């Protein structure tokens, strides 16, 4: 248990230390949101229907930002060897890092997501649902992102590679998450879409640590 706690502490301190990473991701998401009205025109009749979709796209892109940091730096400076020889299995290490990534980046983004959606003209009563869906989806982004970061280990320009590997895996949560909001905006019941979103997230939480650990062992060899 102590190993779990100290790794969490280290990961959160690394995420927040040196330049406020989570705030950067939130800023990036809000910038993306601000660009849409400039590109598509400021007409609320155009923007409001696209608000949920556009905010989810911004959320997915902003979730990519700090993934390169997740394993690549530890590989470069030798800390990954140390993490592998620690008292926890590598699978647990990957899972802890992904959860810490969610706490450090996913949750702040989930708080910023309603702001982005509101700015694009989403109905105000959907604020809670937007944040909830973004928080659940963010957990999925963190785990699939960790898998992508592990797969891209050791590659030159890994950051770009992570984006290309991971974005297709981000499609289901974007479909279900934005779908739940669109549903609710039309007066429907968002529960089925939320259930599908949660199912995908649970799937990612099971697969990503195992596959990620295998990819890391491969990169270390």
């Amino acid at each position, binding site marked *: 248990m102590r190993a779990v706690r100290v790794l969490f502490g*280290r990961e959160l*301190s690394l995420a927040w230390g040196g330049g406020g990473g989570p705030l950067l991701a939130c800023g990036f998401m809000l910038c993306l949101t601000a660009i849409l009205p400039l590109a598509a025109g400021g007409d609320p009749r155009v923007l409001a229907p696209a608000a949920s979709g556009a905010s989810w796209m911004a959320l997915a892109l902003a979730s990519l930002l700090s993934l390169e940091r997740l394993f690549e730096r530890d590989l470069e400076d*030798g*800390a990954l*060897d140390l993490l592998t*020889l620690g008292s926890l*299995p590598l699978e647990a290490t990957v899972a802890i890092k992904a959860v810490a990534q969610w706490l450090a980046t996913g949750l702040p983004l989930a708080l910023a997501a309603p702001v982005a959606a509101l700015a694009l003209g989403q109905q105000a009563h959907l604020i809670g649902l937007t944040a909830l869906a973004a928080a659940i989806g963010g957990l999925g982004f963190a785990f699939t992102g960790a898998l992508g970061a592990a797969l891209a280990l050791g590659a030159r320009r890994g950051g770009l590679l992570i984006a290309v590997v991971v974005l297709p895996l981000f499609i289901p949560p974007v479909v279900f998450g934005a779908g739940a909001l669109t549903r609710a905006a039309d007066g429907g019941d968002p529960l089925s879409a939320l259930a599908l979103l949660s199912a995908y997230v649970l799937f990612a939480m099971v697969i990503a640590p195992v596959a990620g650990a295998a990819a890391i*062992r491969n990169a270390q060899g």
Partner: protein
Amino acid sequence: MLKTVDIQSLSLSRGERLLFQGLSLRLSAGEAVALTGANGAGKTSLLRAVAGFIRPDAGTITFSGGPNAGPGLDGEALEPETARREGVHLLGHLEGLKPTRTARQEFDFQTAWLGGNPAARDAAIARLSLTPLLDLETRKLSAGQKRRLSLARLIAAPRALWLLDEPLAPLDERWRAVAAELMAAHLASGGLILAAVHDPLPVSARSLDLGGLA
């Protein structure tokens, strides 16, 4: 507790290049082996294979020990991954320190992560005179100071097998002497040391020459 490492007819290659083949080595409690050989002969690769990071082309690396091990008794075979996670320290070229964190944060994390205890941690800090360094960010430490932090890790989290890659290289005379004492104490308490070196190890050790470039 890990008591022996048994390497049987091991072959390792990096990329297309065969480093060595048919290497056998047995290391028991209290023994040290100094790996020598030209640059690129495979010393670091052998250490990383024992640590489980490189999969050998052929051959086996097994660990034994456990509660039934004693003088003259190997004890039972250990599950390799568990043996490595509980009994192996690797001190490599890279110290694994994050530049923006303080030496204290990094040392405390490494010690706790590797299963150290507070008493051993304090003893390690005293032994390597780390107190004045602990509040510095690790990017401000010299290579020798970083190595002292790594040596402290070895004694703060007691583990049986030390895999050391050029352990003395960045250290000055004073700290080389301290490192020699730490190694001697580790061997005396039943530890095992496998070290890649160019200079002789400062403790009595068998030597294994991996030769030149294969």
